């Protein structure tokens, strides 16, 4: 815990850049270790087939994790992404119903339904003030119940033309990965270049300071959730095109919710919000995909893979935490020096904002009538 706030802000500015760089370095390291390990077993991790395999693994989790990054930056989270993806795959596949002429209809409807899920999530969190954990967990249950009741097995039929989304490759790079990277680039632009993106950092850093700075915190949160669910919908469409039909349980049972949160955190985004970015998340997804591919090639027991994953995630976050001990303390109302922690949160807003000293988030319920 440092005593001065000014220099820290500058250090943080630089730190942000280097965090992403470090995670990409970690990815390269993982890749090199993987190449050596696979090579010692007589294989080649960088063969065309393995690279295609590795990149294919990134796209589904990539879409979901990019969306998850946005909500986590807002200090929210979304546990319903797996269910949203399943819903989108079924909506898309049933509407397309094997007719190439209805691909656009299916895609638009699937994304629209996903967006509505996100809208409801966002409104329940901001309007009804339900904790995001519970709101999205509940939303997941609601969708699960609907899917299990309405659709017992695979439904719908994805036209061959749309299956290309899942299987087309340009060189060794699957089309889906390119789309995922394009979405990632759009998210980077959103976060770094637009007012809404800056607002997301501000809301996640200190919602009260953001509100007092004139940011519409509620709208920002809702927007993040809509984008997150829409990204999950994209993942669902991709899965539908790969399965060539709409499936429920296979998608929501795959654990994308917790995996995507792990990827985001592995990518250096703080679970407490306000810090991080999509660049790191993509690297986090790549690290997880590389691990999976390497474990597969080495024929590591899938259960041992789970153990290693758990250890790696904890170890990585512990390493990040070492580097930013004082930055993780977002929930504190005042620091060891007695100054509000919010006093150093302002740099994400444009300009030298110095949030008021009254940053302890006391919440709406602190109004005197209630206390009396």
């Amino acid at each position, binding site marked *: 815990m440092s005593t001065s706030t000014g220099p820290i802000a500058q250090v943080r500015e630089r730190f942000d850049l280097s965090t992403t760089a470090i995670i990409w370095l970690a990815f390269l390291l993982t890749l090199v270790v993987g190449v050596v390990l696979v090579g010692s077993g007589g294989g080649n991790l960088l063969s065309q087939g393995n690279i295609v395999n590795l990149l294919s693994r990134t796209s589904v989790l990539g879409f979901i994790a990019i969306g998850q990054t946005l909500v986590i930056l807002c200090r929210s989270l979304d546990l319903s992404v797996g269910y949203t993806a399943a819903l989108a795959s079924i909506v898309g596949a049933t509407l397309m119903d094997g007719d190439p002429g209805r691909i656009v209809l299916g895609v638009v409807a699937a994304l629209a339904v996903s967006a509505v899920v996100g809208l409801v999530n966002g409104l*329940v969190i901001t309007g009804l003030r339900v904790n995001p954990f519970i709101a999205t967990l509940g939303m997941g249950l609601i969708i699960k119940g609907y899917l299990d009741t309405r659709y017992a097995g695979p439904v719908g039929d994805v036209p061959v033309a749309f299956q290309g989304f899942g299987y087309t490759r340009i060189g060794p790079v699957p089309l889906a990965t390119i789309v995922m990277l394009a979405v990632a680039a759009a998210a980077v632009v959103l976060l770094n270049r637009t007012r809404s993106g800056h607002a997301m950092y501000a809301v996640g850093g200190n919602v009260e300071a953001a509100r007092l700075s004139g940011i519409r915190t*509620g709208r920002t949160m809702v927007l993040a959730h809509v984008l997150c669910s829409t990204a999950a919908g994209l993942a669902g469409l991709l899965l539908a095109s790969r399965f060539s039909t709409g499936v429920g349980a296979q998608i929501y049972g795959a654990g994308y919710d917790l995996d995507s949160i792990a990827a985001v955190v592995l990518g250096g985004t703080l679970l407490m919000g306000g810090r991080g970015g999509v660049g790191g998340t993509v690297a986090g997804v790549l690290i997880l995909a590389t691990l999976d591919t390497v474990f597969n090639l080495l024929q590591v027991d899938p259960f041992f893979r789970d153990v290693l994953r758990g250890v790696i995630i904890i170890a990585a976050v512990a390493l990040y935490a070492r580097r930013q001990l004082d930055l993780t303390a977002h929930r504190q109302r005042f620091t060891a020096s007695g100054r509000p922690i919010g006093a150093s949160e302002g740099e994400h807003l444009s300009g030298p904002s110095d949030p008021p000293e009254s940053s302890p988030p006391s919440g709406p319920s*602190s109004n005197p009538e209630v206390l009396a």
Partner: protein
Amino acid sequence: MSSLRERSGAAAGLLNRLTSGTATIFALLVVVLVVITILNPTFARPASLMAFLRAAAPLVVLAIGQYLVIVSGEFDLSVGALVGAQVVFAAKMIDGDPSRTWPVLAAMLVLGAVVGLVNGLITTLLKVPSFITTLGMLLVLFGAVRLWTGGAPTGALADNFRTWGRGGIDMPVLRQLPWALVIAVVIAIAVGLLMRAPWGRTLVATGDNDTAASFAGVRVWRVRTVAFVLSGVLATVAAILIGGFAGVTAQVGDGLEFVAITAVVLGGVVLGGGRGSMIAAIAGALAYQAIERLFTQLALPSTARPTLQGIIIIAAVAWAAREGSRGPGAANTPAPDASADPAPA
């Protein structure tokens, strides 16, 4: 005059308390139980009430452990995997031999405490958010147990192990007082006393504001680590009850962490810490179980249940979170302030 005003103030205070998050859960519990009884009057018989409580006891124990962690401002997502790991561990070690039950029970409790200790130390000393720590622990436990048993659980639980979950003391009126209920009540009383003791006060203070607590002389890392250890031990107790009640399957414990967190939050305990009572968390667990029982009573298709559950959970938490029903500090969670949009200029 003044006494009248005082009285109306007291009445308002009482009203406020009755409609607060904590009271909501008791009202919900009573309503659900009454509805079940109306639909099926035999439910009110002591014997079937005891059966209900026996089935609810593991969740109550889990909820108490989760409450300790949540009120200190953390999460424990590893309890479901821990329950599963413990049941499979017990089956493999006991392998149907009653003479091994007691040593294995002791080993399970130690294992649970160690898992909690690791969770606590990684969270407090290495500063890893508990969501990630316990998520990683979930993966480790899930994988390790299956790695060890080769995928499917092996061995069997002895009868003297299973009696804790399904047996009881024969009695005249109740027919049988389940051991599970006795254990849950003993744990509730013990933890209730602990929460009234200095340690409990410091735990809540830590969850409310850990910096202020550490200024006041609390060793925050120790208090939280103990909470994780207790959560691990209580999850182990729950595993003993569940293993006895339901037996060994590969899926045992799956998703239980979310059920436990839901039960605690239903009880009006605020995620983020510092707010909520243990009794309400227990009521949350009972209400969760009662809602499941109600679904069975209504013969709802099992596939539709999650939808209703989701709606009830969100509605209950939204009701508890509505304007003015929570004290200061509720804003530890990100959501509350977000609604306070500044009016458009």
